[in-house]
């Protein structure tokens, strides 16, 4: 320890000084202590020499020479099918199972087509009945929703909005603005990050 100056700078503190991150009270020590200042200046000079060393590059076409020995992976879609294909054709039994499944699939599709062609009138009557049921259920649902709306305490106020064309236009404008704001907010939320992450860069 040097009286009045505080402790001499440690090696870690000298590193911090070189990186300009040394605490100000410790940096002041350098103004007072010739020994530490000389040491720090010598370190800085050496580091500057190291930083300014000649840039070295490999010979031209280095990348081509490397790429000659690199095997590129197949595109993902192909790669994801490959293991399944290998498993499928691994044994005779797996090939037989795959063939049986294929025959079953093709047979059921063909049977479905043949039955449809032979029973067009039946299909039409079933289709008509299903459509009528769906229409009736839809109409009941609309009536239910409408009656619920009319019973709401705010229904009269909302209805009055449509008393004049000006109010209708205003309501339409407000709705459009709310819709646009929603779309804009959604795009911001779903946008992919474009900035580089500092710790992940080279």
């Amino acid at each position, binding site marked *: 320890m040097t009286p009045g100056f505080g402790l001499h700078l440690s090696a870690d503190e000298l590193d911090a000084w070189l990186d300009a991150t040394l605490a100000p009270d410790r940096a002041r020590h350098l103004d007072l202590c010739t020994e530490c200042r000389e040491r720090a200046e010598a*370190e800085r000079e050496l580091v500057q020499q190291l*930083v300014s060393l000649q840039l070295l590059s490999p*010979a031209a076409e280095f990348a081509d020479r490397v790429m000659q020995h*690199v095997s590129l*992976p197949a595109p993902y879609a192909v790669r994801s099918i490959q293991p399944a294909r290998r498993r499928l054709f691994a044994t005779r039994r797996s090939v037989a199972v795959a063939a049986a499944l294929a025959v079953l699939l093709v047979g059921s599709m063909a049977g479905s087509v043949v039955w449809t062609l032979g029973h067009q009138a039946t299909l039409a009557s079933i289709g008509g009945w299903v459509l009528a049921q769906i229409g009736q259920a839809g109409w009941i649902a609309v009536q239910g929703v409408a009656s619920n709306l009319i019973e709401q305490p705010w229904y009269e106020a909302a209805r009055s909005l449509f008393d004049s064309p000006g109010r209708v236009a205003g309501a339409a404008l407000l709705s459009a603005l709310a819709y646009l704001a929603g779309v804009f907010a959604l795009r911001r939320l779903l946008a992919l990050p474009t900035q580089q992450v500092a710790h992940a860069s080279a």
Partner: protein
Amino acid sequence: MTDTPQWARLTDQEVVFLARSGRETAYRELIRRYERPVFALLFRMVRDRELAEDLSQETFIKALNAIESYRPEFKFSSWIFKIANNAAIDHLRRRELDTLSLDGSPHAETPEAMQATALQIGARQESPLDTVEAKELGSEIEAAIGRLRPEYRSCILLRHVEGRAYEEIAEILDLPLGTVKTYIHRARNELRHALAHLKE
């Protein structure tokens, strides 16, 4: 994603992702980003341009063929520097065995051959730096770096030439952080002493 990504805007991890999907341009981008620092590190480690080219090539081939095993939570730079440094250290150890063994080279099959290779200790002492030294590394500081122990050399090059953080160097070299700091401080001391005569 467009067909021609703006490479400069992509992080290493994003480029690796594209490489894993089989895009050759992504592989070439990784080489473009790291061929110089990897080659410079290896050249200064082994001090032989041709050998450094071979080791750089070996490093990239090993890394790119194993790109599926790269874990994106680590820096790509740490990964490739680790492979490069291991290649250099392996080579230096092999060379050390070949030239410094008191019993001669382990590859020597006859007593005469063993004696001949053992005599290389004397040759090495007469010429601390390898006699075949590339002109590019001819400056005093390059020579002083070449005389450092390989562990110190890796540390000082990664820290002050490649500008890597202490934590990353510890990860690259598989050393505790404190050891890395000690090696760098010692290496700087040795370099300062080696270059002291230039100031006089």
